[in-house]
């Protein structure tokens, strides 16, 4: 594809309020040319609002949107050259596939021959040439999405926006389209912002993920960082599964904090914390960061199995700790794996994803 090289997109201090509701709160994002960035967060966290601000459908309360360092905030949508694929595709129902794709070039006043060439090229890119005279309602969901993508790429947009692109597709098709869009994005090198509430989608497709919560940017980092080094308790629990062990800070050294767990045991976390000694802390560990075994040893935590689920090559445990909290563990299924009764929980080295202040404990104590 003769796509121009990617453009940089910058959000600088973007805030937006709908009356009392703050949908975006001083969001800063620096998106590099050719990058695929996901906006990830639960429903209502402000993802679509950000997308609408970038596209120009919504004027931000404050802040600036820049493409290649130049502000586009004053430009109306139709002069931004930012392509958007809607969740419901929003194909023009009264136009054929080819007419839909030709819409942008015609609006831009391109000569007929050039428009026809672009339409044919885009139909080939999304492998829909055989469907050029169909109406949108005569297409399947996946085909409609390809057309929506082709229509959008036909204007050679500087930025591509995708709003929940796979949520309307069934599971099998979803993976196909994810691979397809990833391939197209790589080939064309177009800077892409994708909105999703599906963490697997974000982890699998993105170069970087911006995790949003109630209008705030919680973390902006590559998927592996988001998963292994979440910046907040929200990110840790929203992305992947997190076990939270109650503890208090026992000591702080150059190599990180040591914490005292509920049964009195002190462990080195290898993580830094801004909390002071004695403060209540939640120690976050992913299910695959621990191991259950029948034998104890140094650093092993006493627990009781409440449920075991063998799933293919893996075993999923739910065990209860001495303070009553329950913990999920995923490990390989081995012949001598315990299936019931008292067991020991081992933390694998360097697998603690974070130490977060424990506010629930405060209220708990006050309640007593």
């Amino acid at each position, binding site marked *: 594809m003769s796509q121009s090289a990617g453009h940089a997109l910058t959000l600088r201090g973007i805030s937006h309020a709908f009356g009392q509701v703050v949908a975006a709160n001083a969001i800063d994002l620096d998106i590099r040319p050719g990058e695929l960035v996901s906006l990830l967060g639960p429903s209502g966290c402000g993802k679509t609002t950000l997308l609408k601000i970038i596209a120009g459908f919504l004027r931000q309360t404050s802040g600036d949107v820049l493409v290649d360092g130049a502000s586009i905030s004053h430009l109306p949508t*139709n002069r931004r050259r930012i392509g958007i694929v809607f969740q419901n595709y929003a194909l023009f*129902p*009264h136009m054929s596939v080819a007419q839909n794709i030709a819409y942008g070039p015609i609006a831009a006043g391109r000569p007929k021959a050039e428009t026809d060439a672009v339409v044919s090229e885009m139909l080939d890119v999304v492998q829909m040439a055989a469907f050029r005279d169909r109406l949108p309602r005569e297409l399947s969901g996946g085909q409609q999405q390809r057309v929506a993508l082709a*229509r959008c790429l036909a204007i050679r947009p500087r930025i591509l926006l995708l709003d929940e692109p796979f949520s309307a597709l069934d599971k099998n098709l979803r993976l196909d389209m994810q691979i397809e869009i990833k391939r197209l994005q790589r080939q064309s090198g177009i800077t892409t912002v994708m909105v999703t509430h599906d963490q697997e989608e974000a982890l699998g497709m993105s170069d970087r993920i911006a995790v949003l919560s109630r209008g705030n940017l919680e973390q902006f980092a590559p998927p592996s960082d988001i998963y292994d080094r979440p910046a907040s308790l929200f990110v840790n629990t929203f992305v992947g599964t997190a076990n939270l062990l109650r503890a208090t800070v026992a000591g702080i050294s150059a190599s990180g904090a040591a914490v005292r767990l509920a049964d009195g045991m002190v462990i080195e976390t290898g993580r830094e914390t801004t909390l002071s000694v004695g403060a209540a802390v939640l120690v976050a560990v992913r299910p695959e960061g621990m191991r259950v075994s029948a034998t104890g040893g140094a650093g092993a935590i006493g627990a009781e199995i409440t449920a075991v689920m063998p799933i293919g090559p893996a075993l999923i445990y739910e065990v209860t700790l001495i303070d009553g909290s329950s913990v999920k563990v995923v490990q390989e299924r081995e012949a001598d794996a315990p299936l019931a009764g008292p067991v020991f929980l081992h933390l694998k080295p360097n697998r603690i994803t974070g130490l977060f202040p424990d506010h629930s404990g405060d209220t708990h104590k006050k309640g007593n």
Partner: protein
Amino acid sequence: MAGALDPKPRDWALALPLAAFFALFFIAPLGLLVAISFETERQMTGTLGLGQYAAFLSDGLNLAVLRDTLLVGAKATLLCLLFGYPLAWLCTKVSARWQAVLIFLVVLPIVTSVVVRTFAWIVILGRHGIVNETILALGLSAQPLKLLFSETGVVIVLAQVQMPLMVLPLITTLQRIDPNLESASRALGAGAWRTFFKVTLPLSLPGIIAGTILTYTACVTAFVTQSLIGGSRLLFMPMMIFQQAMDLQNWPFAAAVSVIFMVSVLLIVAMLVALSRSRAARLYG
């Protein structure tokens, strides 16, 4: 076993009361009307023929009345569309609260009597009415315009009186258009006008046709408005039928005129329906 799933053979019985109602109050009078129209004698002696139809169609004055009626309806409907479309469009763009206010204002004419509204218009359009006073004050004309008892007046008042019939179907259709379509058009580089003419207008065509059919049929048959605003010098089909039947007691001729009028209007409606069918088929299959 199949009985539970198959529609019961006697389900149609549920439609009987409605069918009886229609037969009694709609089909029967209509049948009677058509039957009477074939009476060749004014005294309805039972001699049947096409004499009444021939009498109507052979007189140029009668045909002029039919033409004027169909034309005045077309003009009023066009005026309705011209003012109703932007109004309906506005209704779908404002906040929910303003939308309620606007729709209330649109529907308001329906809840007042046609007679009351028409008399109000007489006051407004008269030689010394609000419109003429304004025109004179602004110096737009040296003499008061003849709005009352003129075709222009009839068209204006018909358009106002029947406005809800145009606006309500339009609002329904415009509201059904996915707002993302307009956004998509803008993002593809189209300005507001192109977006309107290429996306919004074509997609609202079913509503335009529905509104046009309702407004048109209401306008051509609006006896009260046509007579009161048009005055005695302008004659339209409903008044003609009334005069033939009530003043001249010529029931067979009145019936024949009614049938001719009905068929003319139905032909126009059928054309509009055919047009909307072909559009709807393309849009919604």
